[in-house]
């Protein structure tokens, strides 16, 4: 088959078309054959990744007698293809392909008749090979020649004879998918890949009522959009607001992303939404209208006469389509010629919506459908197309809008929760006495979001009648009543693979399994009693045989921690408007293993049998069955949308996990050969028996019935052990071995008397007692030429080492020009300008003034400097280094900039008090080496204690903000981050060693501790200025405060193997598996960057959760070096509650001997609003 093109159908000299007239002026084309012999076929459905493009090509090639390669299939372009409704319910082959097949057959019949005339031979004597009609005398004429320059137009006839199946040569053969070579090489243009000239990039900002589309607040909640909040975004084109629709357009995509994140939008508080923590109660409370689908026999009498009444309730959860690619679209709003490129599953319906949205006639709008990520129902493809159109209209350029993962998760119309009550029971013979089913399906077609957000349509939810799919069981019960309680959605919901049939079948197939157990009859035998459909009976028997089903009238008790079980379920997927019609027949035998300790269920093998009638492309059918088995197993085991206060909370894959490779069952597909029967929809049918087969297998394994998927470990444990789950208790906290509290070997030792005096001085504020220094006269800025290049270079190294720029430079600001806000417990201090600008910097400072500032904390003019400036450390700098630093700073470019005034609370705004502070806590003394120690130790001590000022962050501070000399390097806090203890007080599970300290300070990474992040990352980056021997010296010095070395390799292996995460047994564990494990799991495939081991990470073992929460919320965007890799920020993807679950899990899992953190929720709230 030729490569797909979406805008083909160029007019050749002559052509033959088969059309269906819609009215006097419009017609729809199904098949076009041109004089060059090429064949284009048009179908209103689209390929959602299932391979229908290939299958339709086979059908057309077969009926036309041309080679498969000659056919081009055009799908979903509203300007070209017939309107055949939405691509839903697996109808394409079963329903939509029918006119196409007829059109092809009709064209062939026309052409062969014409050939007979041309060749003057009877039709029966003609053979066709790839469009070449040949007589027995070997004369031939091609389709193209038969068409010539003519414009032949055939009206599609209803009564066209199609080929007998026995003559099929192309249909029924496995044909490779035509789209895969392009997909495997990046050459296929998905809708995400469309680029049109002049295209801009848009993003939308969605309202806070995430995933809710009904209620008076929908479209009416926007208060204000502060456009000034995005003024700094380069290439920003527009901010657009219409009702609750908010969008942004920028020239570059990354800037549109930034703008959408940064845009300040205020919304009215959302009124209380429906509580969805208990889905059953919410669905019962939802208003509904009963609609009886069948009422046969005397159900009430049969129930009251039942020998064993059985009343059961089955609850299906909210689930997501969960397309791998968030929806994307491009729109080009040009007057009278409006084009959108969309991944929609219903181009014509979408065109109507767009016409309504922008108040233009449909005829002006063309919807061009391109392939997108699989959707399995209604996702956000239409929403994003409408969004793009609104933005394109606003800016007069083509605009591409890409929804974020978070938006797709939150706003996609969900596969709805469903509630099914079954009343009935067994009669005296063990038969089903009665079957009285009521089903509640709160879903509709999910109106395109922009229509609601802009107020174009009312937010009154429509009630659709879609809960009835397969609501009538396939079993011939004598007394049976089925009622669909039609109801509006509670949250935004629409069809998802299997629609209501999957949950309804879960009820049918669970109930009959329960009944069989009660009756003491083998579950398959029991079903066969009630199955009247021979094709169903054949399939059930074939699947039982293939699976090696052993009849089991009585369940056998299983023993051990891991128990195995086997379950059966069957369904004929009945879809479309009630009473609907059947797609393929499907039956499953599922094998499970249940871990009774962890609650983990694995589906180990599925035998999936199907009768799909004639299979157009058998390999395609097999792949679809595989896909449906895997997806529905995922849904049954793990999928459930979480809500917080009624809004969708799951916004990434950790909160909505789908099945990963290792958990995929072995699948054995059995396809019944039914070439003599009409082809049926194949894929979706295979999903329908899934959950029931798995639940029945879990029952076989455990003896416990589970009537509410997903069958997560928590549910299984609750079911097995009652309300109190047998969760393994956290290990008791291990007593910390006693450790030294180290004193700073260089700290000022103040006597008691002096302390009291100084405290009095400070408290009373007798500034006069200790006058600040005198002003030192300004000088002309020294000439740079007086300093040698070597001195300047040395100074540069020292400035880097001292992290001067870190405080004295704002983000993206001029180097050393000051202005950065430093948050202290006493208020905000703004770092000063230390460029050599004479007026606003230190250009007029002589060396003595500079040295006095560095050693005494006095400004040139004599006023006290706040000790946020670590002069207590800098004072220890030796003269040579001090001079080099001065030389370097004085030779930097002067920047005229005045820092904002400090905002310190009283009394800290009184600088005079600092004299008292200095008297207490500061001594102006150069570093003196300790002769008893090694040269390296002393070098390290000098570096750490002077410009390095490590203890400035890593030692705790007292109430007056001074380092506590008697708790040297015992850990402190800086800029919202914990600076962990560097001594034997370290919380790290593996004590630091000289080599690890060296590795960490040199590279920012230690295998046994983690990576430098937060304020430590720039520190390590600045340490690059120092040679290895200086870093080694610092490591030697710092390590002297640690205990003796341990066998780190052995301990690491032990800790890592003891903390492996094997099951997703809690929300926190699943968040870890979905969001963290890819980079943090021990032993995974190497990825770009480091792979920090959480079992060894100091932050997981710390007394406070701050650092862990910092990196989760804000990520690591600027690591020490790119070799270490980057960590994304999760602040916009996870809620506080989710992060609390995650953090709590991580602590318990990876630091099992440490007590749980307290105040995690408060820390999250604090860190979320912090700037670091």
């Amino acid at each position, binding site marked *: 088959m030729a490569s797909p093109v979406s805008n083909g159908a160029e007019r050749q000299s002559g052509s033959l078309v088969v059309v269906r007239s819609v009215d006097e002026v419009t017609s729809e084309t199904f098949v076009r054959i041109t004089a060059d012999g090429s064949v284009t076929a048009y179908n209103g459905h689209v390929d959602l*990744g299932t391979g229908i493009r290939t299958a339709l090509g086979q059908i057309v090639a077969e009926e036309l007698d041309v080679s498969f390669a000659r056919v081009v299939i055009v799908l979903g372009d509203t300007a070209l293809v017939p309107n055949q409704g939405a691509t839903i319910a697996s109808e394409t082959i079963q329903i939509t392909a029918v006119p196409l097949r007829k059109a092809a057959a009709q064209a062939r019949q026309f052409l062969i008749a014409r050939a007979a005339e041309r060749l003057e031979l009877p039709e029966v004597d003609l053979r066709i090979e790839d469009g070449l009609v040949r007589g027995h005398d070997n004369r031939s004429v091609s389709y193209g020649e038969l068409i010539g320059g003519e414009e032949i137009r055939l009206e599609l006839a209803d009564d066209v004879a199609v080929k007998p199946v026995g003559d099929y040569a192309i249909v029924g053969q496995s044909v*490779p*998918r035509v789209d*895969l*070579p392009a*997909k*495997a*090489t*990046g*050459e*296929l243009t*998905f809708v*995400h*890949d469309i*680029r049109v000239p002049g295209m801009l990039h848009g993003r939308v900002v969605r309202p806070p009522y995430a995933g809710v589309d009904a209620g008076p607040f929908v479209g009416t909640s926007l208060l204000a959009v502060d456009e000034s909040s995005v003024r700094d975004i*380069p290439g920003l084109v527009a901010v657009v607001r219409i009702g609750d629709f908010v969008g942004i357009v920028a020239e*570059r*995509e*990354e*800037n549109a992303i930034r703008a959408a994140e940064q845009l300040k939008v205020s919304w009215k508080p959302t009124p209380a939404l429906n509580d969805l923590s208990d889905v059953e109660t919410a669905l019962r409370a939802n208003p509904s209208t009963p609609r009886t689908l069948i009422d046969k026999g005397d159900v009430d009498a049969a129930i009251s006469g039942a020998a064993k009444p059985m009343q059961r309730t089955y609850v299906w959860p909210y689930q997501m389509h969960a*397309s*791998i*690619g*968030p929806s994307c679209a491009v729109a080009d709003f040009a007057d009278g010629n409006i084009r959108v490129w969309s991944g929609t599953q219903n181009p014509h319906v979408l065109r109507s919506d767009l016409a309504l949205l922008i108040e233009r006639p449909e005829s002006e709008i063309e919807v061009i459908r391109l*392939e*997108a*990520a*699989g959707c399995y129902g209604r996702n956000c493809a239409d929403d994003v197309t409408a969004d793009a159109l609104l933005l394109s209209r606003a800016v007069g350029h083509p605009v591409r809008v*890409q929804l*974020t*993962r978070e938006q797709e998760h939150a706003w996609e119309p969900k596969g709805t929760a469903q509630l099914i009550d079954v009343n009935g029971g067994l009669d005296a013979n063990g038969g089903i006495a009665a079957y009285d089913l009521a089903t509640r399906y709160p879903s509709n077609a999910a109106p395109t979001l922009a229509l609601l957000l802009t107020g174009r349509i009312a937010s009154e939810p429509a009630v659709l009648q879609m809960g009835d799919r397969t609501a009538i069981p396939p079993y011939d019960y004598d007394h049976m009543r089925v009622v669909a309680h039609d109801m509006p959605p509670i949250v935004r919901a629409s069809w998802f693979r299997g629609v209501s049939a999957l949950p309804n079948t879960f009820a049918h197939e669970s109930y009959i399994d329960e009944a069989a157990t009660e009756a003491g009859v083998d579950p398959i035998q029991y079903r066969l009693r009630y199955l009247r459909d021979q094709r169903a009976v054949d399939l059930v028997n074939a699947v039982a045989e293939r699976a090696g089903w052993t009849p089991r009238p009585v369940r056998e008790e299983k023993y051990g921690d891991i128990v195995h079980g086997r379950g059966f379920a069957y369904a004929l997927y009945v879809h479309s408007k009630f009473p609907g019609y059947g797609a393929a027949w499907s039956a499953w035998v599922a094998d499970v293993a249940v871990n009774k300790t962890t609650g983990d269920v694995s589906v180990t093998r599925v035998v999936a049998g199907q009768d799909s009638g004639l299979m157009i492309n058998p390999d395609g059918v097999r*792949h*679809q069955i*595989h*896909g449906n*088995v*895997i*997806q529905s197993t995922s849904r049954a085991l793990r999928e459930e949308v979480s809500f917080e206060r009624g809004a969708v909370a799951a916004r*990434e*894959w*950790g909160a909505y996990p789908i*099945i*990963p*490779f290792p958990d*995929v069952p072995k*699948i054995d597909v059995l396809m019944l050969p039914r070439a003599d029967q009409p082809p049926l929809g194949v894929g979706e049918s295979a999903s329908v028996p899934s959950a029931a087969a798995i639940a029945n297998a879990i029952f076989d394994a455990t003896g416990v019935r589970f009537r509410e998927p997903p069958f997560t470990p928590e549910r299984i444990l609750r079911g097995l052990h009652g309300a109190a789950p047998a969760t393994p208790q956290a290990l008791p906290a291990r007593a910390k071995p006693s450790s030294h509290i180290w004193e700073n070997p260089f700290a000022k030792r103040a006597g008691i008397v002096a302390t009291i005096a100084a405290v009095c001085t400070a408290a009373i504020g007798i500034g006069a007692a200790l006058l600040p220094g005198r002003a030192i006269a300004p000088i002309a800025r020294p000439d740079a030429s007086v300093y040698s290049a070597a001195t300047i270079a040395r100074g540069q190294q020292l400035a880097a080492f001292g992290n001067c720029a870190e405080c004295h430079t704002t983000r*993206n600001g001029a180097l050393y020009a000051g202005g950065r806000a430093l948050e202290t417990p006493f208020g905000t201090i703004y770092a000063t300008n230390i460029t050599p600008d004479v007026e606003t910097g230190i250009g007029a400072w002589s060396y003595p003034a500079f040295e006095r500032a560095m050693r005494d904390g006095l400004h040139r003019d004599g006023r006290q400097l706040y000790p946020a400036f670590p002069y207590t450390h800098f004072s220890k700098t030796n003269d040579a280094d001090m001079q080099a630093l001065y030389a370097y700073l004085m030779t930097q470019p002067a920047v005229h900039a005045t820092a904002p005034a400090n905002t310190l609370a009283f009394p800290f705004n009184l600088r005079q008090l600092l004299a008292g502070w200095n008297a207490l806590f500061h001594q102006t003394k150069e570093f003196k080496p300790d002769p008893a120690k090694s040269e390296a130790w002393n070098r390290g001590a000098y570096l750490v204690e002077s410009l390095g000022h490590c203890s400035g962050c890593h030692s705790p501070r007292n109430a007056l903000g001074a380092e506590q000399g008697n708790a040297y390097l015992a850990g402190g806090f800086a800029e919202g981050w914990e600076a962990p203890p560097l001594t034997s007080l370290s919380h790290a599970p593996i004590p630091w060693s000289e080599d690890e300290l060296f590795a960490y300070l040199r590279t920012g990474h230690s295998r046994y501790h983690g990576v430098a992040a937060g304020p430590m990352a720039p520190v390590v980056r600045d340490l690059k200025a120092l040679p290895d021997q200086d870093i080694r010296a610092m490591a030697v010095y710092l390590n002297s405060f640690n205990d003796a070395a341990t066998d780190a390799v052995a301990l690491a292996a032990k800790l890592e193997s003891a903390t492996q995460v094997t099951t997703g047994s809690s929300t926190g564990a699943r968040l870890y598996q979905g969001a963290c494990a*890819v980079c943090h799991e021990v032993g*995974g*495939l*190497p*990825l*770009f*960057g480091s792979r920090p081991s959480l079992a060894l990470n100091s932050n997981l073992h710390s007394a406070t959760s701050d650092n862990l929460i910092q990196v989760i919320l804000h990520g690591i*965007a600027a690591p020490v070096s*790119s070799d270490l890799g*980057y*960590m*994304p920020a999760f602040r916009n*993807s996870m809620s506080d509650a989710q992060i609390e679950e995650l953090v709590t899990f991580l602590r318990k899992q990876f630091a099992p001997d440490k007590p749980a953190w307290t105040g995690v929720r408060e820390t999250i709230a604090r860190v979320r609003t912090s700037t670091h």
Partner: protein
Amino acid sequence: MTQTPIRLTVNGAIHEVAAAAETPLLYVLRNDLALNGPKYGCGLGECGTCTVLIDGAPARSCVIPVSGCAGRDIVTLEGLGTRDKPDVVQQAFIDEQAAQCGYCLNGMIMTTKALLAINPRPTEQEALAALRYNLCRCGTHVEILRAVMRASGQLTEAAD
């Protein structure tokens, strides 16, 4: 936000791009270099659709700023082969029909490429573990696993 041009080596060719330093590599590859193989899936490195090779290692290009890629060797799906001359891994995926919608396919192929570079004959368990964090929603796992086995020359034809 500095706008100094960043020099990248992508699929063997050197490019200078004028994107902000913090721009994720993914957007530069797609929008500046028109390389459509890597796809946006989650922006958090969770799903793997954006995978490229950086200095031979699989990398999630949605979470790596372009500035971190300066001077590094980047290979995308397009760099492996074309429809006419596919790479052995691409060919194996085509032969096994290992895609439905194909959106995750880039990540599957690139991760397989990286796996086979360090483990040319992985066991099925190793292949499953290597692809553990590449998500597929269509359920093409069976065909993908066969493609990995085929690409490593150890497909047992009997298996299905």
